[in-house]
C-alpha cells in the first residue's frame, strides 16, 4: 500500500455506470464502480455470477454494443477518459495499452484461420518497429520477420513446437495451449493493463496453476498490471496483491489480499469467506441468506441490505459512502464515521 500511494495509477476507474437497455427495461448493471490499478499490480475482481465483473471489463474495453450498453463515468488512462473515445480511437489502445483474455480460450480463437495467420496479423498490427529491426538485423523478408516474431512470442508464453502450432486450428489444440496462445496474442503489443476475465475457470486445475504462474511472470517481467476477474477466492489469494469484492454492480470492499482474508470488513465479504470450504475449519459451511438481487428492481440504499445480518435502518435508505480505513476501502454504513449506530455494530 505504502509503495503504491507514491506511484501513479496506470488505470483509474471512477464512478463507472453501465446501463443495459433490455426488453425488461433499463438495467443498471454497474452502479458506480471505483478502483485504481497500479503498474505491475495484480488486482482480483471477485464476486458472484451476475455481479457485473465481466461487464466492468468489457465496459473498460468498450467491447459492448453502444445500442445495448450506455456507459457513464471515467476510465482514466494517461489523463484520457477512455469512455470519451470512439470505437475507432479506442482501437489504438486495444492490444497496445490495454488487452484482454477470456474464459473460454478455444472459443476465443477464430476457428477457420490457423493460429499462425491470426498471430501474424497481430504482429503486423502491433510490432511494426520490431519487424523493421529484425529485418535489418537478419536481412530477411518482411514475411520471415513476422514469422520469427510470431514464433518468439509463442515461445515466450511457454509453448513448444511453435512451427507446427502455427499451422494448427483452434479445435486441434488443448484448452491450456489455447489460453497460452491467447495470452501471447494479448500481450504481444506490450499492454500496460491486461484484463483476465475468468481466464482459468474453464481449465483443469494443473493447467490453471501453469497459467497463473505465467501471468504472474508476465506481470513481473513486463510491468503489466493485471485485473484478474474470478469467482474463485482461492485463486485470488494465490495470485493477487489486491482484492476488490463486487456485489450487484458495486465494489463493496478493496484491500490487500492478506488483509482482506484476515480481516474482512464488509458483511458480504465476511459471508463470502465463510462460504469457502477450508480443510482446517471444523465448523460447517455457512451461506449468505437470500439470492443476488433482481436488477430490474434493485434494493434501495445499500444493495446488500436485504441479505445483511447487520442491516440498519439507514442501509435501506442511503447508499453507503466509500470509507477508507487504515488498509481497506469499504462501502458500508457500519464504518461510516458519521453513523452513531455503527459503533456497536462493528464488533
Amino acid at each position, binding site marked *: 500500500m505504502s509503495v503504491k500511494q507514491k506511484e501513479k495509477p496506470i488505470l483509474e476507474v471512477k464512478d463507472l455506470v453501465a446501463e443495459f437497455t433490455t426488453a425488461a427495461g433499463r438495467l443498471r448493471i454497474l452502479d458506480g464502480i471505483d478502483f485504481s490499478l497500479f503498474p505491475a499490480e495484480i488486482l482480483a475482481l471477485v464476486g458472484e455470477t451476475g455481479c457485473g465483473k465481466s461487464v466492468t471489463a468489457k465496459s473498460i*474495453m468498450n*467491447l459492448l454494443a453502444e*445500442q445495448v450498453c450506455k456507459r457513464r463515468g471515467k476510465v482514466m488512462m494517461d489523463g484520457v477518459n477512455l469512455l470519451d473515445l470512439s*470505437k*475507432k480511437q479506442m*482501437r*489504438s489502445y*486495444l*492490444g*497496445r495499452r490495454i*488487452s*484482454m*483474455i*477470456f474464459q*473460454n480460450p478455444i*472459443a*476465443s*480463437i*477464430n*476457428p*477457420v*484461420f490457423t493460429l499462425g495467420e*491470426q498471430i501474424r*496479423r*497481430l504482429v503486423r*498490427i*502491433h510490432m511494426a518497429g520490431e519487424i523493421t529491426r529484425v529485418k535489418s538485423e537478419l536481412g530477411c523478408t518482411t514475411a520471415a520477420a513476422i514469422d520469427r516474431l510470431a514464433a518468439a512470442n509463442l515461445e515466450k508464453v511457454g509453448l513448444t513446437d511453435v512451427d507446427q502450432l502455427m499451422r494448427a*486450428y*483452434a*479445435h486441434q489444440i488443448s484448452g491450456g495451449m489455447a489460453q497460452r496462445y*491467447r495470452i501471447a*496474442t*494479448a500481450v504481444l*503489443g506490450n499492454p500496460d493493463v491486461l484484463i483476465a476475465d475468468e481466464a482459468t475457470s474453464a481449465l483443469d486445475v494443473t493447467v490453471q496453476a501453469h497459467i497463473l504462474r505465467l501471468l504472474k511472470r508476465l506481470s513481473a517481467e513486463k510491468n503489466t498490471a493485471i485485473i484478474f476477474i474470478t469467482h474463485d477466492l482461492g485463486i485470488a489469494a494465490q495470485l493477487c496483491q489486491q482484492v476488490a469484492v463486487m456485489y450487484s454492480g458495486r465494489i463493496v470492499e478493496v484491500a490487500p489480499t492478506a488483509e482482506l482474508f484476515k480481516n474482512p470488513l464488509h458483511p458480504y465479504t465476511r459471508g463470502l469467506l465463510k462460504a469457502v470450504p477450508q480443510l482446517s475449519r471444523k465448523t460447517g459451511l455457512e451461506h449468505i441468506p437470500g439470492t443476488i438481487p433482481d436488477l430490474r428492481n434493485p434494493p434501495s440504499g445499500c444493495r446488500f441490505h436485504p441479505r445483511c445480518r447487520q442491516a440498519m435502518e439507514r442501509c435501506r435508505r442511503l447508499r453507503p459512502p466509500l470509507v477508507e480505513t487504515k488498509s481497506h476501502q469499504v462501502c458500508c454504513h457500519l464504518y461510516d464515521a458519521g453513523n452513531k449506530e455503527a459503533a456497536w455494530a462493528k464488533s
Partner: protein
Amino acid sequence: MLPFLIRRLAGLVFLLLILTMLVFGLSRALPGDVAAMYVGLKAKPEQIQKARLELGLDKPVHVQYLRYMGRLLKGDLGISLRTHRPVARDLKEKLPLSLEIVLLALLISIALGLPMGVVAAFKRDTWIDSAVNMIGSAAVSLPIFFLALLLQLVFFNWLGWFPLQGRISTMMEFRDPLPAVTRFGLIDALLAGDLEYMADMAWHMFLPVVSLASIPLGLVARLSRSSLLEVMQADYIMAARASGVGETVLFFRYGLRNALSPVLSIMGLSMALMLLNTFYVEQIFNYPGIGYWALASIFSLDYPVLVAITLVLGAIYVLSNTIIDVLRRWVDPRIK
C-alpha cells in the same frame, strides 16, 4: 477427402437406384395404356398389340425394369413415347440449355446476394439494411410464375427491352448452327467468335435467369446477413477486437469466412429448387430446356423421358451438394 468423395459416389449410385425403381414403378401404376400412347390415338387394336410386344410391355413389371436397367447401364435411356426419338439424344441437347440458365442464376444470386447481405450486416439498422431486407423478402416470397409473368409484362409489353420468349431470335435460327463444344450456348458462341449470336442468346436468357435467380438471391442475402451478424457476436470476434484488430478485418475477413458455411448450404438447396423452377420458367418463356421437356412429357405420360429427367435431376442435386460440401470443408476446417 477421398474417402468422403467415394462415400458420396456410393450414395449417389444408391440414390439413383431407388429413384429408378420409384419412377419406373409409378409410371406403371398410373392409369393409361403406354402402348396406346406410343402408337397414337387413331391406332387400331392390332397396332397397339404390336407396340405392346415391341416395347416389352407384355412382360411382368420386374422383368421390364431389369431390361430397362440393363439398357441404362449402356447409356440407352429408351425411346420417347411422344416423339419416338431416343431419350438420351434429346437429353444431351436440352440439359445444357437448362443448366446454362440455372448456373447463371446461381452465379447472379451469389454475386449479388452475398454482397447485399454483407453490406446490410455491416450497415446494420440503417436504410441500406432495411432496403436489403425488403428486397430479400420480396425476392423469396414472390411466386416464380408470377414474377416471370410480371417481368414479361414490364420488360416486354411496357418497356420493350427484352424479348417475350424463346432462346434466340427467329433470324438467328437460319444461321449455321454453332459447333457444339461445351453445349453451353454462350460459351460455344464465344468460342466460335460469334458475339452477335452470343448477345442475342444472352438477351433472350435475361428474363428467365432473373426469374430463376430471384428466390436464391433473397435466400443468400438474408442468410448471409443473419449468419454474419450472429458470427460477429462470437467470442473470437470480441477477442480479436480486444487485441486491436480493426473492424474491417474483423468483419470482412474474420467474420465473413465463418459466416459462409450456412450460405453455401443454402446454395446447394437453391440448386435443387432452381432445377424444379425451370419447369415454370421454361414453360412461360417458351425456352426449350429440360423443364419444358419435362412438363410436356408429364402431360403425355412419356415415362422413359420422365425416368431419365428424374435420374438426371437427382444426380445433379447430389453432385452439386458434393461440390458444396467440398467448398464448405475448404472454408471451415472443422467440418469432418
